[in-house]
């Protein structure tokens, strides 16, 4: 091996088809060691399939996957010792106690017996499960079950952790715990999580990978993605006055200012507008001064913070346009205020 420390996960031209339907089409990406990566995509984008291939549970049709330099296809045993996996919907045996289950899983993951007891105490503490350690899993609430799944995934301290929707069905307090838990793994373990709760991914992940129809449609840090997909500084404005004269006023403030969406005037004559520029600087103050100088009545002006949701929608829509050119284009969405 030329590189003493190969990247944690290398996926190269991965293809997987189910009965003629392509789930993963030529997917390639690399995850460095210690990185926390978020996996986003609409339903049926191939997230779960990709994760299952990464764990060696499903075979791929073509392409290679390497976990810490070990090929999943040719060295499945080595790979299974390197990963902790929590599948979608977190399947757990109904009739075992939490501590029994963790002990059984620890033995299967080849943790020596004398280390297993202290390690179970440690993960129970980490996942805030101490109170339910003697409860039967079938009687636990969804939040506890989810945390049992996470505890099981990190039990053997594997270098790579793969979690398919770990925060699904948790209340905000438990989401916070899980987020802290995942953040606590930063640097020590490589983590891949998929989620539909986009702010979650944004807060915990170093990098986001958006896939749609089995292809990577965007990747990068959440901030970079936002810029790439949605453009630059944008504003939401609620204003009344001479709307027809507004574009000229905007041009005077900043040449690249454009009105991207216009709402219907309400009873008092106020119109909601979405504005976008091609620059990164703030234009709030000069814009406000110019509006007041022209006798516009301003009710609200705010800088639009596109969320990852907008990025997600924009990026996946882009691939829809690319793969289905004949479909009518959906109306462009303005940045949310």
């Amino acid at each position, binding site marked *: 091996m030329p590189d003493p420390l190969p990247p944690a996960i290398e996926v190269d031209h991965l293809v997987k088809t189910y009965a003629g339907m392509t789930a993963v089409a030529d997917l390639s990406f690399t995850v460095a060691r210690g990185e926390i990566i978020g996996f986003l995509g609409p339903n049926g984008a191939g997230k779960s399939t990709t994760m*299952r291939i990464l*764990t060696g549970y*499903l075979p791929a049709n073509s392409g290679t996957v390497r976990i810490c330099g070990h090929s999943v296809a040719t060295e499945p045993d080595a790979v299974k010792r390197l990963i902790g996996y929590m*599948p979608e919907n977190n399947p*757990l045996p109904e009739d075992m106690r939490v501590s029994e289950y963790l002990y059984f899983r620890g033995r299967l993951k080849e943790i020596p017996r004398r280390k297993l007891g202290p390690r179970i105490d440690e993960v129970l503490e980490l996942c805030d499960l101490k109170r339910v350690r003697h409860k039967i899993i079938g009687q636990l609430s969804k939040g506890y079950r989810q945390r049992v799944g996470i505890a099981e995934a990190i039990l053997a301290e594997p270098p790579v952790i793969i979690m398919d929707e770990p925060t699904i069905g948790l209340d905000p307090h438990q989401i916070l715990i899980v987020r802290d838990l995942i953040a606590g793994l930063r640097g020590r373990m490589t983590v891949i999580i998929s989620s539909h709760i986009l702010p979650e991914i944004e807060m915990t992940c170093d990098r986001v990978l958006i896939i749609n129809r089995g292809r990577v449609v965007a990747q990068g840090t959440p901030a970079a993605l936002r810029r790439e997909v949605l453009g630059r500084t944008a504003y939401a404005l609620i204003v009344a006055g001479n709307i027809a004269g507004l574009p000229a006023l905007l041009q005077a403030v900043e040449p690249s200012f454009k009105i991207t969406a216009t709402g219907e005037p309400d009873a008092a004559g106020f119109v909601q507008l979405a504005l976008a520029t091609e620059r990164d600087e703030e234009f709030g103050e000069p814009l406000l001064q110019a509006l007041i100088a022209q006798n516009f009545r301003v009710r609200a002006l705010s800088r639009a913070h596109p969320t990852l949701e907008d990025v997600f929608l924009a990026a996946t829509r882009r691939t829809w346009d690319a793969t289905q050119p004949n479909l009518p284009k959906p109306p462009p969405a303005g940045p949310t205020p």
Partner: protein
Amino acid sequence: MKHFLTLLSHELRMLLVSPSTYIAATAFLFFMGFIFTGILESYTKAPQEASPAHVFFSTFFLPVFFMVPLLTMRCLAEERRLGTIETLLTTPVTTTEVVLGKYSAAYILYVTLWGATAGFFYILKNFSNDPRLLDLGPLIGGYVFIAVSGLLFVAIGVFASSLSRNQAVAGILAFVMLAALIIGGRWLGEAAFLSRDVLAPAKAAVDYAQVFSHYDDFTRGVIDTRHLLFYFSGTALALIFSIFSVEAKLIHS
């Protein structure tokens, strides 16, 4: 095979804490006790040719038809239905270890349940004061037959369970396969169309696979290696097919 013992002890523990095991055991012993009393009653009315043990074990197919599907239908079907097979197979265990662990646990339970019927003969010995009723030969032969044939029957049940994610379907499949082996073999052996000269090899094969004639040999004290080979190779085949079935479902899922 590193994880075989871990999996086996886990499976046995799950069987021991599950109420359905005790319900099945009670029902089994009640049913067999009923048969046993029936046999003893017929001995009080008229002298019989065979010993009670021989008659008792000749009803082996009744509990096999119902107990084996009940014991084995859960094992792989349930794992797949719950999805826990996914977490199981992403640890360093192999499919072979998983299937063997589940098979061994079911077999141990099957043999233990039959072993409990030894109590009937103990009671008979203590209360009848008639040594003729307790012929040791057929008794030991009967238990050996149960242990050896159980290997194949339980393996067939495990195979049926690997074919479906629905427990009921797995149970019915196991019942049909066991019935085809035990009753269907007997029926084929008596069927007239097989007696033609052309079909002599097929007839020989069917005669070889007669479970009832194996039983007769065992209780007469004849432990034929051909019979042993029949059950051992059948078991190996059923287990290999179970392993392939679990893996094939992953590849073609």
